[in-house]
């Protein structure tokens, strides 16, 4: 990936607010699911958006695919704002942008066979003659590790991992450029997760795909992605190269998230110091003032209660929305992982 190529995806000032009424007579409150997100993704890059439940990552995924409309901001796909496209143009664009869903149980129509499921994208977009479509379905099944003998089977006849392979094959049917994967392995068992992660990696190399990976799990993301953005309550709090972000987190929230992950090695578990956050993630309906993270932050100062921090570059390519941590002496950040 060279520095001078244009990004395939550019997100600028993206906001999605929902009006939520809490009762019949009370006034509506704004739920700021996505509240000012900026980043760009380069062709053939894997970019991860990581956060806990309620941070807005799934709303963001829906916006990136124009499945929802933003309150403000734009999403540029190869330079065109997807929200200002006409229907026909948007439909053509959809071939290039696909999604892989989390739940392989509910995202496949139970009354369609594998062949029908994989044929559907070609039918919808009017691609190829029936014989050619069949051929392409078979090739897709091969590429995604599905036995061709199962071509007339229904989703319930497959295991979870196999079903996720069908979901991936469907997403890749039309040779997309960008694939948004919304927690693609979190419903699967570990031994199957590894198979699917390897498959996604292989397919990326073969088909020159760009991934936006939505996840709550740093360890799976680390395997696949070059860059990571961490979200908290609708905002990106930190963004950087995978190794830099994991090895030297610049935002207290990232630091705590990393520290919370149990490491499958009892010797490391016994030795490491952990930052255990107190309290729950605040309700997005009433986020704390200033920096949203300040009530749970061990570095918070008075100023954090009133000032909303902006992302700033702390090291080349590494951005954090925290004016305190990058300059504080961090006792354990590096020791958290190593």
């Amino acid at each position, binding site marked *: 990936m060279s520095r001078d190529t244009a990004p395939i995806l550019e997100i600028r000032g993206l906001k999605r607010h929902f009006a939520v009424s809490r009762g019949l007579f009370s006034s509506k409150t704004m739920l700021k699911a996505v509240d000012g997100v900026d980043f760009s993704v380069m062709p053939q890059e894997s970019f991860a958006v990581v956060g*806990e*439940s309620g941070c807005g990552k799934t709303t963001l995924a829906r916006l990136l695919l124009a499945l929802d409309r933003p309150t403000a901001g734009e999403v540029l796909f190869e330079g065109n704002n997807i929200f200002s496209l006409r229907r026909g143009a948007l439909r053509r664009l959809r071939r290039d942008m696909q999604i892989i869903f989390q739940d392989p149980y509910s995202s496949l129509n139970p009354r369609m066979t594998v062949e029908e499921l994989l044929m559907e994208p070609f039918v919808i977009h009017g691609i190829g003659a029936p014989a050619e479509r069949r051929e392409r379905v078979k090739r897709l099944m091969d590429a995604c590790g599905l036995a061709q003998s199962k071509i007339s089977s229904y989703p319930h006849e497959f*295991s*979870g*991992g*196999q079903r996720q392979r069908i979901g991936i094959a469907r997403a890749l049917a039309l040779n997309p450029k960008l694939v948004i994967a919304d927690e693609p392995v979190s419903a699967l*068992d*570990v*031994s*199957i*997760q*590894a*198979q699917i*992660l*390897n498959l996604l*990696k292989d397919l990326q190399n073969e088909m020159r795909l760009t991934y936006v990976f939505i996840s*709550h799990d*740093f*360890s*799976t993301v*680390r*395997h696949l992605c070059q860059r990571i953005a961490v979200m908290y309550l609708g905002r990106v709090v930190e963004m950087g190269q995978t190794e830099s972000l*994991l090895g030297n987190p610049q935002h207290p929230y990232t630091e*705590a*998230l*990393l*520290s*919370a*992950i*149990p*490491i*499958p*090695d*009892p*010797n*490391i*578990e016994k030795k490491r110091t*952990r930052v*255990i*956050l*107190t309290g*729950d*993630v605040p309700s997005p309906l009433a986020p704390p003032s200033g920096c949203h993270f300040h009530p749970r932050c061990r570095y918070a100062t008075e100023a954090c209660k009133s000032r909303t921090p902006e992302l700033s570059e702390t090291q080349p390519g590494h951005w954090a929305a925290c004016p305190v941590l990058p300059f504080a002496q961090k006792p354990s950040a590096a020791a958290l*992982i*190593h």
Partner: protein
Amino acid sequence: MDPVLSVKDLRVGFRTERGFLRAVDGISYDLHAGQTLAIVGESGSGKSVHALSILRLLPEPPAEIVSGEITFAGRDLLKLSLSEMRKIRGNRIAMIFQEPMTSLNPVLTIGDQISEAVILHQKVSQAKAMAKAVDLLKKVGIPHPSERVKDYPHQFSGGMRQRAMIAMALSCDPDVLVADEPTTALDVTIQAQILELMRDIQKESKMGIVLITHNLGVVAEMADEVCVMYAGRQMEGAGVSELFKDPRHPYTRGLLNSVPSLYGRKDRLEAIAGQPPELVSEVPGCPFEPRCSKAMAHCKTERPTRFEPAAGHYSYCWMEDAKSQ
């Protein structure tokens, strides 16, 4: 020291239209006071069915406890009458579940639900039981417990609900806590809080914990002893450091290798090929044989016996037999 809970050759199955499904097929272990035994396995390994059978919570039929002994306080739980079992369940042996939302009653307050067990097992007044509920909520770290005790489950967040479940489980100071994927539905930062809470309580009360999980990170953090299950069978077991340092069974090794790690460089994950078997058909040999790269001819036909490569470390794998010869 005698174990607080001892399971011997437990076999549990279900009668289905397609035949007899062997969900748990010969599990044995000892749990000691103040210790945590982690049962690790993937979906369909029988780890939850085994947990439910300890508390006799499986509906019989379709479930059927084929054989085995579960010894607790000198008695075999599988031989107790339902009313005797009721005195133990929730009192001496408590359980917490994966889904804190579905395992709490949505139309009763948190306080009512916690005090229910206290009133039932300790025969105290309603007011005393409610006071105990407030104490318990305080102990599990719920802020403003005397007000929150009047809340309904939907007013609690996921982490708070799991804390309430733990409070309920602790209400009668149990000797054994069976925790079935207690943090799987929670975010990592909340998971860290709940695991810390369980450890603190265990330190104080010396209860034994049977922790059922699929997460090897949670195992490394919490367990003293580990037992790895696959397709209803016990594959391997050892002390936690020993198991991670020297895994013997090819399935355990596969499992450890397939976890993406946060440190070290692994470009490609070593996935275990294939799928877990269907339990309906009888497996005469080792159930892992079709996926095992080390499989030998007799792995398909002969059920592996228990080998002990080191003290306190066992593996059900014919490779151990080959090594020892």
